[in-house]
């Protein structure tokens, strides 16, 4: 970065403070994030001062209470949005509070609540987390901690910090805030991935991989930001949008390649987070290695947050160059839908299979991103909510099916044979989730797929939808194969032990089933809250960017 650019950046960042006197931050609109942040900080203090015996309860109450409070605040903020215009930009235009933000934040908070319940579950067996993460796997020290019944209560503040990043990520209104949100979200997740109780080395390997590749992708993202800044002279989304609309006038001559490369590289960083092919390699390894409750958190909340950020970046600052980024997105979406579906066919481990399934679903959502229309935005957001609930429920089921030897989760699919005979309710719930993944009518998955594909067709991306439908057919094959395996195969000789769902896990599965059925049978209320009313859309001229605050 040359000196001129650097000082310009400095001016941009410093300007509001100097010209407006004391900072005027609308704390009310930021309150959900502030609550989560405060709870995280309190959690750290609790680690230091609360006696060991009462630590877990304290942390649990703190975390669940904070998430609930944040959710209530988020819902109450909907009423605070101005009737005209999309929303409000606060805190020196670094955060946008608008309908997409609030919907995504609300979704993330509910899904986080479900994930927290899974994390808290330790009713009948020991929890999913290592007794002492710092101990060398297999060492005497580790054994001592296991025997002493130690518990990693740091999990809760870490989840809260990650959650803070997730809430900020789709709300960020400039690239630097977004980058900070990305890191705030990712760093705790790297740690959390390494905390699995069983197969410690495997889990630690996953954490290291996730960290290395995450850092790598952050570098791409940051480089992309720098190029865009070079083009637009600002990191603020509205300013960048203006510069893109004006062809970069006034900042740099012939800067088009800067912008294009910037979009590409910033896009790589975001596509990594959503796990699109060819930036998906981390997903199966990390999903498999991480403790399953953390996998549930990543598969639901992180995906929602990452797609929220992706939608905002490609619709607001880069909204003016839709024709330039669309072909690139086409390539990525096709690669994602085809490659991931094909690889998933030969998977033998349930968690890896769900990871690839998550990659394919990211491909489906990308078709809605490509639509670049209000319908696309609404379809993508509905899909995220629907998929989030289903996937949390599916991972909750995974935590309950344990292999006979060692008591770890029975990941291998051969162990799941005949589960429908031995545990019909659990297998029935998983069957429903798989049907929703496959997009069978009367489940939320069908409505979600219909919404994103309809948006894509309306935007002229019919070939993409044809590929999407074919890819759905391939994925339906392996989902139904699991159902057949569970219900029509003879139970395995050394079948798994199926734990009776304790309170928290049972609640999560029930909520997953209820949401999957409800959003499939009666999606109207949720779909309608995301779409602008017809009159508004007319005034807004059908531009998706008008749904975002600037």
């Amino acid at each position, binding site marked *: 970065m040359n000196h001129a650019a650097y000082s310009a950046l400095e001016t941009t960042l410093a300007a509001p403070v100097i010209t407006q006197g004391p900072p005027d931050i609308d704390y009310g609109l930021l309150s959900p994030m502030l609550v989560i942040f405060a709870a995280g900080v309190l959690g750290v203090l609790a680690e230091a001062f609360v006696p060991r015996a009462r630590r877990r309860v304290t942390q649990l109450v703190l975390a669940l209470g904070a998430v609930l409070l944040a959710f209530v605040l988020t819902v109450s903020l909907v009423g605070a949005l101005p009737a005209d215009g999309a929303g409000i930009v606060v805190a020196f235009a670094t955060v946008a509070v608008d309908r997409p933000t609030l919907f995504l934040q609300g979704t993330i908070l509910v899904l986080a609540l479900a994930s927290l319940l899974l994390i808290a579950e330790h009713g009948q067996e020991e929890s999913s987390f290592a007794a002492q993460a710092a101990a060398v796997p297999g060492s005497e020290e580790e054994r001592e901690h296991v025997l002493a019944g130690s518990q990693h209560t740091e999990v809760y503040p870490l989840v809260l910090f990650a959650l803070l990043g997730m809430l900020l990520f789709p709300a960020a209104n400039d690239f630097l805030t977004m980058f900070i949100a990305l890191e705030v979200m990712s760093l705790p997740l790297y740690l959390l991935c390494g905390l699995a109780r069983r197969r410690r080395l495997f889990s630690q390997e996953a954490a290291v991989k996730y960290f290395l590749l995450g850092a790598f*992708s952050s570098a791409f993202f940051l480089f992309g930001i720098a190029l865009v800044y070079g083009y637009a002279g600002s990191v603020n989304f509205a300013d960048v949008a203006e510069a893109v609309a004006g062809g970069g006038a006034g900042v740099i001559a012939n800067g088009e390649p800067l912008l294009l490369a910037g979009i590409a590289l910033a*896009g790589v960083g975001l596509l990594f987070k959503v796990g699109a092919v060819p*930036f998906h*390699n981390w997903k199966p390894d990390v999903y498999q290695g991480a403790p399953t409750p953390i996998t549930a958190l990543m598969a639901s909340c992180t995906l929602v947050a990452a797609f929220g950020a992706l939608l905002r970046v490609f619709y607001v600052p880069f909204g003016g160059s839709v024709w*330039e980024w669309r072909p690139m997105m086409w390539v990525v979406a096709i690669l994602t839908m085809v490659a991931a579906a*094909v690889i998933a*066919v030969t998977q033998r481990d349930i968690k890896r299979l769900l990871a690839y399934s998550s990659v394919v679903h990211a491909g489906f959502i990308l078709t809605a991103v490509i639509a670049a229309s209000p319908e696309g935005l609404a379809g993508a957001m509905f899909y995220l909510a629907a998929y989030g609930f289903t996937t949390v429920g599916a991972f909750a089921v995974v935590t309950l099916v344990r292999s006979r030897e060692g008591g770890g989760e029975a990941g291998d699919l051969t162990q799941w044979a005949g589960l429908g005979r031995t545990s019909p309710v659990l297998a029935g719930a998983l069957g429903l989730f798989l049907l929703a993944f496959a997009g069978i009518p009367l489940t939320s998955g069908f409505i979600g797929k*219909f919404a994103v594909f*309809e948006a894509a067709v*309306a935007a002229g991306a019919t070939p993409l939808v044809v590929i999407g439908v074919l890819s759905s057919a391939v994925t339906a094959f392996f989902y139904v194969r699991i159902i057949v395996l569970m219900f029509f195969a003879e139970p395995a000789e050394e079948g798994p032990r199926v734990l009776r769902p304790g309170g928290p896990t049972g609640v999560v599965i029930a909520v997953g089933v209820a949401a999957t059925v409800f959003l499939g049978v009666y999606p109207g209320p949720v779909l309608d809250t995301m779409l602008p009313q017809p009159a508004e859309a007319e005034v807004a001229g059908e531009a998706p960017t008008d749904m975002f605050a600037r």
Partner: protein
Amino acid sequence: MTEILAAEPHAVTAAAEGAILANAWLLIAFPLAGAAILLLGGRRTNGWGHWLAIAMSLAGFAWAVLALVQLLGLAPQERSRSAHVYEWFSVGAFTVDVNLLIDPLSITFALLITGVGSLIHIYSVGYMAHDENRRRFFAYLNLFVAAMLVLVLADNYALLFLGWEGVGLASYLLIGFWQHKPSAAVAAKKAFLINRVGDMGLLIAIMLMFATFGTLSFAPVAEAAGDAGRGVITAIGLLLLLGACGKSAQLPLQAWLLDAMEGPTPVSALIHAATMVTAGVYLIVRSGPIFEAAPYAQLVVAAVGAATLLAGAIIGCAKDDIKKALAGSTMSQIGYMTLAAGLGPIGYAAAIAHLVTHGFFKAGLFLGAGSVMHGMNDQVDMRRYGALRKAMPITFATFGLGYLAIIGFPFLSGWWTKEGIIEAAFAFGGVTGQILGWATLIGAGLTAFYMSRVMFMTFFGTARWDDGVHPHESPKSMTVPMIVLALGSVFLGAILVFGYRFAHFLEPVVGAPEHHEFSLAHMLTSWPSLTALALMVAGVAFAWARYGRAEVPRTAPAGNPITVAARNELYGNALNEALFMRPGQRLTAAAVAFDDTAVDGVVRGVAEGVRQSSQGLRQTQTGFARSYALTMVFGAAVVVATMLGVGVA
């Protein structure tokens, strides 16, 4: 009739309607809620679950009665009401609504389903008293009632299909309810598979309809049916018939019904006699305008009905298992209805009227059979019965009234409605009318014979009981529903048919055929009526000679070839095996051989291709962070190159 169906069903707003009609969804919601509570509530609901199920079913019945009252308060041509339930989803310009249609036809079915359904719920309390899974049984019964109501109240083929699959599921679950019996599990699977064939027909018909008409709602489809191409509409008609054959156990998809008797007897009464198996008749009557436009398909409907009515009756003559004899009879009676439905508007009202009375007397007969089995330690072989009329007087009386109704004893329910079908068949005219008419007459004679055989072998003659069997009358919870159904078997036919009351009620839906004024004298003195009466008397007399007066052997005699064929269900299973299963297997074997020897078959090739590429692509997932990073660099290069390439171009 198309005009009436098309009379702006959506124009009526909920506000203008009575609350009962507008909230018709509650009718479905009651039993559905019951099923959900019982299934989700688990063992906690064991104590009171069956009462809840009965209450939910009765609530549905009450709602249906109120809806009928409200409907009757409207002018006849206004009795087709569409109740908007909710908008399923609306994406872009595409909106899917869930609407219910309340009209004389659907309300008739709703009353039959909830009315007879409630009686059978009550009966099951006693019948299933000692079954440890009674709660689950009642949950499935409620589920069935809800699905069946969706089927008949739907205002479009898509929703109808949902209910169609729903009753199929409930039927599957209930046939296989006693899963510990391998025969029950096999029967459930068989019913499931054969029904898949029919369902596939219905599904393709629905797709064809959507492709042809662009809509699936009954009213617009009915309106446009006449304009569609002859070939398309005939194909739709034949495919609908295939669907109807599967659900209603008509030839050639009849083989599952006799095996389905493995289910608990209340299930046989409700699902496999009174309601679900008549769904095919409902489908054909509801799709009347399509069949009007496809006379060939309509003729096939009548032919299938005639063939099934005779085949079912012949099978019924030879079965010693009381439930299977009754199942053959069900096939045969539904054959009557299908035949009538294939006659067009002159037959629709007759078909539905017979369907309703049949629902009563056949349910009564099955409940009676269940009561006999209850008293005979679950023995089903009629050769081990005999002389039960003294031991079980109430069962004897109610069964007897049902028996008289089904054989067409004058002035009982069955006589009124069966006469309607016989008359309609002859009124159809031409050689076809004569053939169909004589089929119904021969059927009437056969019915009298096989039903008398059941009656005499069970309640008359000498006691041929097994050792240690002490027949006794069943508890009140079982006899009361039987008495109510017996009353229906006696009076319902007269109530419906006298003055063509029911036909006039259905007119807004099925159209008004040209028919003469109602005349009891004509009904009694026309030659088909007299012939039917004579054949009935002959049938009863022949049965009395063979099974009433003569001693019935405890084991079945060898019998002549016809008896043997009938015992083997006219080789229906062998036919299925020879026609479908073995050629299918051979075809599969040939296809596999072709696959292996010649070029890989396309299907296998694609599947194998996917698998191969999957194996290949899996190699990229090495587990090494360094190679993942390399993939990312490669991906980033592609992304940047695409962006720059597009930008430059």
